[in-house]
């Protein structure tokens, strides 16, 4: 699925946090988004996923405008996201966290718990299998039944990713997916992202780990102080003087 953002604006009080941001990504494209802290990347994510309403501008996924759609509606449309600081359901186990993300579980409606018990049980088994496969892929089998509130930072990042993948998305916005994750696993995750992208899932990835991102993304966007200051292939963008200036003092 493709993403098109046009003239997105957002201010808080007098501060312009996102200013006239316009870009489009192709389906099957992995797009990276970089910029120094405070550039507005998280706010941009919030605007695209429906967690904040823009002052003006539009967001389109595929041919569908997201105008007026709530965050959950956008997610049902196939737009998944992770959070920069992981938000696990702390008192649920790791596996339950993943299963909570699974769509189309009739058992989430009390009516079906009474009258469609077979369908509910069947979907539970499917979700269990998918969750177990996800746990294996992420290397989290050891903590399958552990309460997610007891996980380490890196494990929580992986759980965030796993939860987003469980929603069967057509577009995924990842917020620093590699932070705190070991290099071998980063490569495995990157491989998985490439596979999914080849099958048509779009990706927009915020990362400070530039080498990993540059190897993964075919297209890079750079934000600084709310504006998009550069866009293009990783080599071009990273060689751009303005980008280097903006990044002095930021993570590299």
């Amino acid at each position: 699925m493709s993403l098109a953002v046009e003239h997105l604006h957002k201010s808080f009080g007098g501060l312009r946090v996102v200013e006239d941001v316009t870009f489009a990504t192709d389906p099957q494209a992995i797009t990276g988004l970089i910029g120094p802290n405070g550039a507005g990347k998280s706010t941009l994510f919030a605007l695209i996923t429906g967690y904040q309403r823009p002052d003006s501008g539009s967001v389109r996924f595929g041919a569908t405008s997201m105008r007026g759609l709530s965050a959950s509606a956008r997610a049902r449309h196939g737009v998944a996201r992770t959070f920069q600081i992981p938000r696990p359901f702390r008192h649920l186990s790791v596996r339950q966290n993943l299963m909570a993300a699974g769509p189309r579980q009739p058992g989430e409606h009390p009516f079906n718990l009474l009258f469609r018990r077979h369908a509910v049980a069947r979907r539970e088994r499917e979700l269990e299998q998918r969750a177990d496969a996800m746990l294996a892929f992420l290397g989290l089998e050891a903590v399958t039944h552990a309460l997610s509130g007891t996980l380490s930072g890196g494990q929580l990042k992986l759980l965030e990713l796993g939860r987003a993948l469980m929603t069967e998305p057509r577009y995924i916005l990842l917020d620093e997916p590699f932070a705190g994750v070991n290099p071998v696993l980063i490569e495995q995750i990157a491989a998985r992202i490439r596979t999914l992208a080849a099958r048509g899932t779009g990706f927009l990835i915020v990362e400070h780990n530039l080498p990993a991102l540059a190897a993964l993304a075919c297209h890079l966007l750079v934000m600084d102080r709310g504006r998009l200051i550069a866009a293009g292939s990783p080599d071009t963008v990273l060689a751009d003087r303005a980008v280097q200036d903006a990044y002095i003092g930021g993570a590299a």
Partner: protein
Amino acid sequence: MLGYLEAVGTVGGIYALLALALNLQYGFTGLINFGVVGFFAIGAYTSALLAMQGGPFLLDIAAAAILAAIFSWPLGLICLRLRDDYLAIVTLAFAEIVRTVIVSEEWLTSGTRGIPGIPRPFAGLPAGTAAVAYLGLVLATVVVTAVLMRYLVHSPFGRMIQAIRDDEDAVPALGKNPASFKLVVFSFGAALTGIAGALYAHYLTYISPDQFVPLLTFYIWMAVIMGGAGRLGGAIAGAALLTVFLEGTRFLRDLIPFVSEVQMASLRLAVIGLLLILFTLYCPQGLLGRRIA
């Protein structure tokens, strides 16, 4: 002695029902319902008034549940899409309004005079057996409710409400809307609270507005917090502790004669206040709960 134990058991069972309902709302879903006594009163008065008109017992109970749920619905629709504390304030206010209406609309509720002579089921049986039968009824209701809760909590629905409790803002990113889940839980809990009210009215056979004060709401909160919010056994354990506490202070009065009735009531209130403070500070997970760092 037996009669006393039956009484304590019956009232304790009713507290357990209230605690189970609040535990579902707050312990498992994170809803701050400060209006427990309001739905309790609606259930009690609905059931009592219908019974006085000759309505059969089961119909009275059902009506109590339905009416409590109906009143909870608009409150839920308005508040559950907003911040958590708005529900707290609105439900607290709602309970007060319910009480005000009960006191003022004398044509319906007999105001402060109350409603005496509410028919009890099992009236045909000899007195001793009837009391045991009623105790059995209440305890059976508690058991059925507890089993139902267990099933609900372990279901996909239960998974979602706990997710909402743990991090409501992360739920929309999964394509699910917290508000509809919260509304179902709120109304179901209200219906259950209404049933408890009906059982209470038919047990005491006399109800009046004085019995439906905010303090009761916070008795139940104390039970849920002490027992362990979000733990299946917590509500029942908490209700048991609450019953022991309330009965215990009654005995204490007999042991310490120089403390007046008023002072004993003050001491009770002080202990409740202190327990609420101490538990939130030092034992927020309750006696049965697990603490996550």
